[in-house]
């Protein structure tokens, strides 16, 4: 649907012609995010300052058009899609690191700064930014804040909310407000805690103050190789139960590691049923003791072999395999549907068997890749979008997996967010009273509902039949990076 010409003229006056995209061929690029359901914006804008964001927000309010923020478009729950059209605000031009304060271990960044770029910028001072989503080479810190993003190393270091100290907000009214600050414990309610992870439904964020951590003195990366997936999940249960907290503890099942190996040549053994990629970091002494304890547990749980990465190159190769797994799977299947369920870690072995059972019953091929250490599961259900039957089966299987996660006391999303993917599942997790209070909070800050509409909350009130539209993962040549592209 083309945007009202008057609004377009106003946007061009505000941002210049080079800051506004409205041709259908250009908009096509922005109807996807990291996964894909289509939702085409009516116009895409590229502000380069907080003042311009204020102008956009005021304009949207004046004309009563929906407004959605977007970083690099790598999100996996449809958070950055303009579900009801309107203006899509891409923060690609607000990508400056405004301040690096090494002594106090703080940085102030604009929302469009790429996650890994911040760690690179402070590397010389021996510091890093801890949240490390697999998409960290392209995803933005603004997007991380909106979704409260995680990553493999959040097992030890926590998710985005544990590292954000202050935000500059542009409220739907156009008012600019700073919350939190550079110091800890600012008096009053923990507004950072509310806004981080609010999926762009409460305000636009234009500046972010984060905590930087000191890089560990030593890092060791282990690869434990198993004949059965059960032995691998049992290892995770045992490591957790013994109170060992590695920095990361990732599991890839046989199917997934073979897909990855063909692509990344990371050295994953093709004949194994599962591998655990475990990393420990900290003081040399801590790392040595933990690595020894972990090796012992792996052996006890019948690991065929435990390898230690000999140097940084080997370590990076193993991580390349892990972090590019989704891309690798994309080469093998026309489409796949990634889940983000969370379960108590003691339930890992039975949950993996359950996922297997469900997928077998629906005749669906599945690859499993888990942030096993914190019980966060990413099963990838493979299908061909051209087959209606396969598609329907994937939806049913996914719902059964989610229902199982909830039944053992888990959650429907550990780090990808609810967005427009799982909003209809929210009543399975929260009562009407819980959701009513959350809605009241949304209506307080976003009274017109124009900010990222039709996300996070279920569209219907009752807990009747749940209908879920999965976000379909495209195959090879995924347009995931489309959002990062800038207009000519």
């Amino acid at each position: 649907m083309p945007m009202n010409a008057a609004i377009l003229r106003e946007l061009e006056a505000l941002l210049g012609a080079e800051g506004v995209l409205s041709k259908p061929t250009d908009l096509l690029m922005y109807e996807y995010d990291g996964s894909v359901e289509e939702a085409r914006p009516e116009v895409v804008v590229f502000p380069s300052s907080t003042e311009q964001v204020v102008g956009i927000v005021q304009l949207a309010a004046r004309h009563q058009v929906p407004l959605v923020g977007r970083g690099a478009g790598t999100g996996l729950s449809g958070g950055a899609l303009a579900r009801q059209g309107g203006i899509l605000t891409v923060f690609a031009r607000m990508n400056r690191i405004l301040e690096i304060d090494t002594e106090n271990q703080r940085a102030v960044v604009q929302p469009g700064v790429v996650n890994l770029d911040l760690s690179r910028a402070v590397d010389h001072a021996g510091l890093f930014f801890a949240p490390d989503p697999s998409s960290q080479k392209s995803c933005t810190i603004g997007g991380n804040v909106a979704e409260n993003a995680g990553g493999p190393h959040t097992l030890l270091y926590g998710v985005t909310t544990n590292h954000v100290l202050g935000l500059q907000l542009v409220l739907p009214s156009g008012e600019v407000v700073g919350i939190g600050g550079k110091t800890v414990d600012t008096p009053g309610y923990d507004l950072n805690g509310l806004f981080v992870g609010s999926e762009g439904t409460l305000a636009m964020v234009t500046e972010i103050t984060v905590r930087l951590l000191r890089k560990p003195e030593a890092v060791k990366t282990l690869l434990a190789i198993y004949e059965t997936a059960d032995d691998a999940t049992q290892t995770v249960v045992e490591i957790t139960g013994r109170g060992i907290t590695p920095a990361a503890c990732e599991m890839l099942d046989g199917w997934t590691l073979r897909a990855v190996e063909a692509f990344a040549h990371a050295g994953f053994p093709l004949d194994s049923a599962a591998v655990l990629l475990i990393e420990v970091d900290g003081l040399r002494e801590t790392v040595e003791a933990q690595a020894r304890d972990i090796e012992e547990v792996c052996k006890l749980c019948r690991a065929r072999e435990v390898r230690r990465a000999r140097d940084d190159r080997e370590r990076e190769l193993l991580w390349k395999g892990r972090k590019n797994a989704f891309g690798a799977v994309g080469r093998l299947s026309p489409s796949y549907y990634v889940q983000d369920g969370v379960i108590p870690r003691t339930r890992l072995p039975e949950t993996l068997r359950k996922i297997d059972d469900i997928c077998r019953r629906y005749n669906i091929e599945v690859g499993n890749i888990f942030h096993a250490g914190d019980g966060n599961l990413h099963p990838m259900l493979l299908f061909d979008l051209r087959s209606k039957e396969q598609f329907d089966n994937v939806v049913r299987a996914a719902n059964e997996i989610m229902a199982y996660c909830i039944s053992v006391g888990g959650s429907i999303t550990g780090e990808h967010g609810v967005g427009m993917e799982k909003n209809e599942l929210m009543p399975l997790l929260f009562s009407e009273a819980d959701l009513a209070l959350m809605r009241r909070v949304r209506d307080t800050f976003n009274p017109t509902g124009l900010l990222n509409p039709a996300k996070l909350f279920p569209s219907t009130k009752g807990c009747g039949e749940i209908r879920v539209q999965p976000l379909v993962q495209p195959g090879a040549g995924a347009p995931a990076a489309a959002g990062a592209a800038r207009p000519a």
Partner: protein
Amino acid sequence: MSLSDAALVKLEALAGPENFSAEWEEVVQYDIDGETPSAVVTPPAVEALAEMVRVAAEARLALVPAGEKTKLDFGGIPDRYDVAVRTAALNRVLAYDPGDLTLSVEAGINLAELQKRLAEHKQFLPLDPPFAPRGTIGGILAANSSGPLRHGYGTARDFTLGLEFVSEEGTRARSGGRVVKNVAGYDLHKLMIGALGSLGIITVANFRTFPQPPASATLGASFLGREGALALRRAIAESPLQPRALEVVSPRMARLLNLPNVMAPGREFPEGQWSLLMAAAGHAQVVQRHSFDFRGMAEAAGAAGWFNLEGAPETALWQRVANAPYEMATISEADTVMKITALPAAYGPLLDALERAAEEKQMSAGMLIRGPGVVHLTLTPDESHQPAVPRLAAACHAVFDAAARAGGRALIERCPTELKRAVSIWGPPRQDLALMQQVKRTFDPRSIFSPGRFLAGI
């Protein structure tokens, strides 16, 4: 019978007579700054509590939740105060999965009791707030109370997985969950933590638990001047060491902690000594490494003496550290405790300004500088013909200014009631006050939860 009297009768019926008291001897124990409630209720279960809140809200009765009453004097003077709601009967462990390191408890449970339960599985909650071993989970969360361990483990917001609470409508609401990673829905529990009971009454808290480290030790060093202690703090912060607690202690605070005797039993502890305390934990080799490196860094910073503590004396010392600022405030009624957040790079000028503020108004200052940028300051007015409260008020204003200049904030945690009438204990208003007020109106439109006690009269 007035509306509120009728509501009190209903509350008594809901609670049962044995869980309700309007006797003076009982209600006076819940006095806050001279304001005394009409009744004290102890809801026997969460359902009853929810119903009571509904009844109270309809009659606009003001409720103040209370655990062990250790922090009732935190916050502002209540605008209205009808009923103290005790969480004492809500004290069960609802679920504990040691293998998953997760825990779900009711809010009235005593922290020390809970720690004992966790210790059976060699686990613990890294909460070491003041007033141990008293204090309930609900009260600690409501005040966002923390202690020295926050340096290594963060504060409650970092390991609370979810909360249940009774909302102003009298319904049970929940956010977060019970698994260690979860981003479904708004994190309303983060708003509840530190809200001083102004948004609802916390009933259940879910936490991640932590393994007890196999070994620990505390290293201490003393310095003739402040610069040495701050230099050592900075050296440790910039080293690869990962202490679980790190504190710089002023001379006056050191005496309260009995550091002179710990440092050098039977020997002279010169006036004006500043100290630094560091706690290390982990495998034995890790603790040894901390010890070894600490000694090198302390020497380089010009330490006049050092010590190493383990076992029971170590535990006792850290309990004193957690309590010190508040204990000092019980020595004299006029004592005032402030909490200042600041950036470590600004510690030097900030501490100068704090000392000057105290000196100019004839008072003694004690300071405890906690790892991640928190300074606990106690102000004790010296004997003087001048009345204490105006002097305290002037000193507090000077502290607010000094904190702002150091890029931080200050607030008054505990002080005489008269000082609360003279100074805004939360410091100068910030630009996000309007957002805070909106949060309050959203959760508590009839203003029944602890009215007046939170930020700027919320």
